[in-house]
């Protein structure tokens, strides 16, 4: 159980990084609080796994420090750090039984055998492998093997943190929910700091109290699932979280309002948006209304997602998605309007406060 601080951590896999593009992790400053359940969310290649491996010591960062409970562990090798990690693909010791696999990390740390037996039995229960405990790991299926890997991550009682690197990739969907619920349960009982890497927003949002969204080697936003939805700080967050993602379109400011192709769509931005920056307007499909008045648009297609439908339109040359409520019809001559509560303005992809929303913006900081 521990707090983990990342202090100006940068990492490049190449030998002599020149520009920001050479860094897999550009610059990360973040604190994982003691006992928190975090999800690291981002697309493939955004640096999630690198960050995880830096925390566990499998990779040492090019720059910066990693602190566990305030103590600098940057120079310590993995086995000296008290951290457990579960990998994307199953890693089992073929020559051992399931039980021996789970006992292995404890045995290497000279835990008493009575305690090992008790811990292993608990973990067998958690991951649902009790029936297979004395089978050899070699003959098992991929998801059974992954449960062993998961179990080896959970078996050490005194770890500072448990890191999960997309641990449920090979597990079938039904089992996924079950195991994720087990992990939540383990977290609730043990209060160990858990960091869960995933590229699946559902997985992140259901597992974590706090979601850390990463994009191109940087942390772009940290927040609760609700915050990420309501106040995306970066266009990437808006686009990546939510289904479908946020509509993002370029706008111009004329001092009074933001305009898209001659149509005023929102009140003017606060003055901190520099005139030279690239301005964009973001609005989630949930806040796009179709009615008889507003900006004229053309329907391209309507998608039926079961509980709701999504209308895809073009408006002044830009694609826009709008969520249709149940029973809501698509007007014959649709016009688009945006609910001001859900309109965000972005300068160079970062959110700026729009007049009248300043208070709401503060909450997300």
């Amino acid at each position, binding site marked *: 159980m521990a707090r983990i601080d990342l202090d100006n951590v940068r990492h490049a896999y190449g030998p002599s990084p020149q520009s920001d593009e050479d860094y897999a992790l550009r610059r990360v400053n973040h604190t994982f609080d003691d006992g928190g359940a975090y999800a690291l969310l981002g697309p493939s290649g955004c640096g999630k796994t690198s960050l995880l*491996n830096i925390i*566990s010591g*499998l990779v040492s960062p090019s720059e910066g420090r990693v602190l566990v409970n305030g103590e600098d562990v940057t120079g310590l*090798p*993995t*086995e000296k750090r008290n*951290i*457990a*990690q579960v*990998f*994307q*693909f199953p*890693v089992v*010791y*073929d*020559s*051992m039984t399931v039980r021996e696999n789970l006992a*292995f*990390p404890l045995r*290497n*740390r000279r835990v008493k055998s009575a305690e090992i037996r008790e811990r292993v039995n608990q973990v067998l229960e958690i991951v649902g492998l009790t029936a297979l405990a004395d*089978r*050899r790991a*070699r*003959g098992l299926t991929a998801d059974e093997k992954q449960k062993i*890997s998961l179990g*080896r991550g959970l078996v050490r009682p005194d770890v500072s943190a448990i890191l999960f690197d997309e641990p449920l990739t090979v597990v079938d969907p039904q089992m996924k929910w079950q195991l994720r619920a087990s992990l939540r349960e383990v977290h609730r009982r043990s209060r160990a700091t858990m960091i869960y890497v995933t590229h699946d927003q559902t997985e992140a949002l259901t597992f974590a109290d706090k979601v850390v969204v990463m994009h191109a080697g940087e942390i772009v936003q940290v927040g609760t699932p609700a915050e990420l939805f309501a106040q995306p700080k970066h266009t990437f967050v808006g686009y990546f979280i939510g289904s479908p993602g946020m509509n993002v379109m370029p706008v111009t400011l004329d001092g009074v309002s933001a305009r898209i192709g001659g149509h005023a769509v929102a009140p003017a931005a606060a003055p901190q948006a520099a005139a030279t920056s690239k301005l964009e307007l973001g609005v989630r499909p949930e806040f796009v209304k179709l009615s008889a008045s507003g900006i004229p648009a053309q329907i391209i297609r309507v998608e039926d997602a079961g509980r709701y439908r999504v209308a895809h339109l073009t408006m002044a040359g830009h694609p826009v998605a709008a969520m249709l409520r149940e029973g809501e019809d698509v007007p014959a001559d649709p016009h688009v309007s945006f609910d001001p509560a859900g309109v965000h303005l972005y300068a160079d992809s970062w959110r700026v406060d729009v007049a009248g929303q300043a208070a709401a913006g503060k909450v997300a900081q």
Partner: protein
Amino acid sequence: MKPVNQRAWFLVAPVLLLVAFTAIIPLMTVVNYSVQYVGMNTQFHWVGDLWFREVLASEKFWNALWRNLVFSGIILMIQIPLGVLIALNMPRKGWGVPVCLVVMALPLLIPWYVVGMIWQMFGRVDIGLFGVMLRDFGYNYENDPIDAWFTLVLMDTWHWTSLVALLAYAGLVSIPDAYYQAARIDGASRWQVFRHIQLPKMARVLTIAVLLRFMDSFMIFTEPFAVIAGGDPVFLSTELKQTVELGQKAAMSLIYFLIILLMSWVFYTVMTRDDGEPRQRGGAS
């Protein structure tokens, strides 16, 4: 239930035909010789199991068989651990990889007879570098069977350890990084990594290595023939060469063949048994 369609056998026919001409018919010819006495004017006389009884009663045969077994045993005991050790220490990336692979593969490219000739000259006590160096210790492979034996083991090790090393290396590089990372997380020692990760992952290729090295060393002929030209030690193959009677040769060939078949089967069965659990067939990848 569908009716059984026997016409499927036609699909096997081409293979059967091919195998018949490449293996079955030649083998049956040998079987035929082994129960005949070939007299003057190539007249064949049925003699039953006479040749087999004669071979099995021959002390020279048993001596040669024993020598073959000891030789293969020594070869396996040296080359398998040595090959694994070399593979463990080969570089995994960078310019060292191609250099290592090419250097390791070189001995494998040299024909058996040439290897024999190289060592025959290399070991000579009058002009061979190796022989001259060891001359003062009483080394002389032409007179001393022990020295000849030693030279053959050394030569075979030089020639074939690379094969074991390359196979083991192939097994090692196929292990995903995650295994080593997990071992570090679990606090495993270097020996445990070898015992629980590297060795099990190499088991398949090592089975192949053991089988190949056993069969090749058990069939050794060209090298002793080139180096000691029919002198001591006498192996089954060289003994076979010196046998005159066609029928006896055939009987001995068959016994030799059956021993190799039996030993290979035993090796394979022992090394691939899966601790009493049902094994997946054909999963030799």
